[in-house]
């Protein structure tokens, strides 16, 4: 365990202890706020059900993320290649991001039904944006002199993309991916709230109606754990793809 993590872990532990103490002292009735121990117990009891629902949510998140990244990549390449597309669509892109996903999710359910499609569409909408914006910024930060040098060596646009623009944009792509990974889980859960046959969002609405706050907290923790795990996965890929950013300083 790296030393730099100690303060943040200590803070989390302190928070959990305080929470446990408040619950045990009887200041707040246990049906309103379950203690961390209650939540843990609920988590263990519900494990099979949580696992089953997680798989559905994860499947939606992965498919949506993959498609979102694909769409985002394509959009960025097109907008970078054709200035007119950039001028036409960049403002539009920003506008789409001001619409809260909770607001369009019900519409998507009306259009696409209760199956997986509306969930994936919502995730694509919310994940392609960070990828596109990250890549575009990255492409535009490519060194003009380096591009000139490659041109003088006879490189065409495709090769300039391959050898300069794309690798230059990798750090921004990964920042975008990390955000997109977190969005994909949240997006899946939100769209499940609004209708579906399974998944952590559906589970959540079910336990909410039963006023089972301990299970509610258990699923909330699970969702944030999944998001964190996905972000860690992206980080791992980042280190694999960009070893030069993690060189030992000599």
């Amino acid at each position, binding site marked *: 365990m790296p030393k730099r993590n100690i303060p943040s872990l200590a803070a989390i532990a302190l928070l959990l202890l305080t929470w446990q103490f408040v619950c045990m002292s009887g200041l707040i009735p246990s049906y309103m706020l379950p203690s961390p121990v209650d939540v843990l117990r609920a988590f263990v009891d519900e494990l099979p059900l949580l696992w089953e629902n997680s798989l559905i949510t994860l499947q939606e998140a992965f498919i949506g993320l993959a498609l979102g990244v694909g769409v985002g990549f394509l959009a960025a390449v097109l907008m970078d290649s054709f200035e007119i597309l950039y001028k036409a669509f960049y403002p539009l892109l920003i506008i789409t991001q001001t619409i809260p996903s909770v607001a369009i999710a019900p519409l998507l359910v009306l259009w696409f039904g209760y199956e997986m499609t509306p969930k994936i569409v919502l995730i694509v909408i919310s994940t392609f944006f960070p990828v596109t914006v990250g890549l575009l910024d990255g492409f535009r930060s490519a060194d003009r002199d380096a591009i000139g040098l490659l041109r003088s060596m006879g490189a065409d646009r495709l090769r300039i993309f391959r*050898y300069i623009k794309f690798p*230059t944009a990798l750090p921004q792509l990964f920042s975008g991916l990390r955000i997109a990974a977190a969005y994909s889980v949240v997006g899946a859960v939100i769209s499940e709230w609004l209708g579906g046959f399974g998944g952590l969002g559906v589970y959540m609405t079910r336990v909410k109606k039963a006023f089972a706050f301990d299970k509610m907290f258990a699923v909330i923790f699970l969702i944030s754990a999944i998001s964190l795990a996905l972000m860690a996965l992206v980080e791992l890929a980042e280190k694999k793809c960009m070893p030069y950013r993690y060189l030992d300083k000599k």
Partner: protein
Amino acid sequence: MVKLEVRKVSKSFEGKKVLQDISLELRRGELVSLLGVSGGGKTTLFNVISGLLKPDEGAVFLDGEDITGRPGRISYMLQKDLMLPYRTIEDNVALPLLLKGVKKKEARLQVSSMFPQFGLDGTEKQYPAQLSGGMRQRAALLRTYMFSRELALLDEPFSALDTLTKSAMHKWYPGVMEKIQLSTLFITHDIDEAILLSDRIYLLSGVPGRINGEIIIKEPKPRREDFNLTPEFLEYKREILSLL
């Protein structure tokens, strides 16, 4: 034998003339400098020679062939080493070969045989950030050489280096150039550097930039250790200053 010839090149930007009737030639194995103040059109001329810019008038010939406005024949090297930070040194150096369609494995093999000559052995798998400025410039030079084996076009290549490294490069470069039979066109604003390294010096000055003189440095190569402290050296310097 003439390697490179620039014939009566003129170039304007937005109605402002930058270069006027520039003619120069570079013979095989020669190191020729183009000396002039910063912002005097030197870099424009370089871009014309490398084919990235088309001149308004005039032409550029490589081995007698007209290459005006055609990139991909002559490569150049700048003050910025332009080593791509995300590629290892060997993959940076192999880039021109990859662009020519050589397979990756074969390209690596070809470049690795040149590393010792450029004093770069052991750096193959390192990244540019791990090398000193002087080493990066050597790698950049090797990359230039991998692209065009007979002619190097260098735009103030050593001016970002510290004095000691620069002086080491001045001692190193003529030797390696002779070993690999390279002809060099060298842009610089550093008079001492030009006298120290060149066989001939073209003086570029005025607005628009013109060639205002040609100085031949008769001192034989390799140059004496203390050439830059001799009266001859000062005489050349005086002559250049009077012409600029």
